[in-house]
């Protein structure tokens, strides 16, 4: 085995473990930030200032009984959470999180900080995101419960509606970067205008960024768009009948999807690992900081904004966001044609 192949394997394993632990961190952050915004303490008993709370949560879930409704479709009921978790992990495979590095001369050739370098990476992310809906829909249907089914159907309707705007917002960045590889798109954002404004896509595509953020929140079923699991109406939505580890898988998938969407947003709109003060080899620190900021924003949104009504979500998606993203794409295309980026 060549050292590079070894390094690649280690990197893959690292990304897997990092994603797993990121969801644990996010559980803690979510509870702490929620407490902060509601003037409570949040978890503080397990470990120093409650740091071990996620582990306690996981242990509790592990020891719970695995229940399955009698009228459920056994095969699909078992497969659905697996599809959700797999899709969540798979999407991050093509997301680069740092510049190529030799690890301070440890390797003879530079290694890309990315599990798989695909030249159509942007589309791969989009394709896997569209696979995500199956886990939720199948969970909703196979549970054979009206709350689950309603949650699943809402989710698929929501994801189909917002995927269009999501894709069209991506297309604007692709046009400007003239590539489908995320690494190329990030490198296109290196440097600064007039020496102080970073050349990030968000400054060229502000409307695209806004559309991408909104559609991203809708895609990950987060508040204020968390209709698939609206507690007050649907008990818990598509995972109402799930318990123990299969519930944990949906939970895991939700948080990993959040991390992935934030990481993709950072890569495509916020300059990825490029930033001032740090050398290129330490760019992953910038990447982490930006992704963390976006994740905090997600949590902040959830505990600040109330849920919209379902018809509001639908009419907003089709009558506002979609026309806006089409216009944004047309203007971007015209600009690229005129200025020849």
């Amino acid at each position: 085995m060549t050292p590079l192949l070894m390094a690649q394997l280690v990197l893959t394993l690292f990304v897997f473990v990092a994603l797993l632990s990121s969801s644990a961190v996010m559980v803690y952050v979510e509870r702490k930030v929620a407490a902060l915004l509601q003037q409570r303490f949040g978890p503080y008993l397990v470990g120093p200032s409650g740091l071990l709370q996620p582990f306690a949560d996981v242990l509790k879930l592990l020891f719970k009984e695995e229940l399955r409704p009698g009228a459920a479709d056994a095969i699909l009921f078992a497969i659905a959470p697996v599809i959700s978790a797999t899709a969540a992990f798979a999407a991050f495979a093509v997301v680069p999180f740092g510049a190529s590095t030799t690890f301070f001369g440890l390797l003879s050739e530079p290694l890309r900080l990315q599990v798989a370098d695909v030249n159509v990476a942007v589309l791969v992310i989009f394709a896997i995101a569209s696979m995500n809906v199956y886990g939720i829909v199948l969970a909703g249907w196979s549970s054979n419960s009206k709350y689950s089914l309603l949650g699943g159907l809402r989710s698929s309707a929501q994801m189909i509606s917002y995927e269009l705007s999501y894709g069209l917002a991506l297309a604007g960045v692709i046009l400007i970067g003239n590539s489908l590889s995320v690494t190329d798109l990030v490198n296109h954002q290196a440097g600064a205008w007039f020496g102080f404004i970073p050349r990030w896509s968000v400054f060229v595509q502000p409307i695209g960024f806004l559309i991408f953020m909104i559609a991203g929140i809708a895609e990950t079923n987060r508040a204020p768009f968390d209709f698939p699991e609206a507690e007050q109406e649907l008990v818990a939505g598509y995972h109402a009948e799930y318990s123990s580890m299969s519930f944990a898988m949906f939970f895991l998938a939700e948080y990993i999807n959040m991390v992935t969407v934030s990481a993709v947003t950072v890569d495509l709109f916020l300059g990825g690992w490029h930033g001032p003060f740090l050398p290129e080899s330490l760019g992953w620190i910038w990447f982490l900081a930006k992704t963390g900021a976006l994740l905090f924003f997600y949590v902040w949104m959830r505990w600040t904004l109330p849920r919209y009504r379902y018809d509001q979500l639908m009419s907003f998606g089709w009558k506002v966001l979609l026309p806006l993203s089409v216009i944004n794409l047309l203007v971007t295309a015209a600009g690229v044609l005129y200025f020849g980026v």
Partner: protein
Amino acid sequence: MGSDALFYVFGAIAIAASLLVIAQRNPIYSVLLLITSFGALSGLYVLLDAPFVAVIQIIVYAGAIMVLFLFVVMLLNAPHEETPYDERVHPLLREGPTRFGGALALALVAELVWALTRRSGSGAFAGASASSVSAIGRSLFTDYGLAFEVTSVLILVAMVGAVVLARRDPVSRDRTAAGGDR
């Protein structure tokens, strides 16, 4: 060597899944097996050095069209196909439809034989490489521009047709139930 083995793996999955699609009684399983088959097909596209086509296959067919299929199957709530044992002869098993189906099958076999024996290079992609997105885009909007536009008009017609069929007839609607929304 490795890609040969992968070809057989993906090919076997695609064929097995496609056969199972028509062998299922439960339409939801059929839909899922069809998605599996599409996934295997997109693996074959990757082996053919066409990652763009592979990803588009997933996005368009597995990600968009099949979700709508699943949606329709679930909303119709048809967990099991109707098996009319009480009828002595199923309407599709009567003489006329069987003969028609046989003729169609023969035509399909004949077309396949014709297509497979006629192996000239005319079907090859003219662009630089099938993986180049710009090459695909250029030939789609220049050489095959007419076919592309005709297809989109066809889809538009289907959409308009679906809306017309699904729309409630305003005249026959119960006016008392309609209340004030009209």
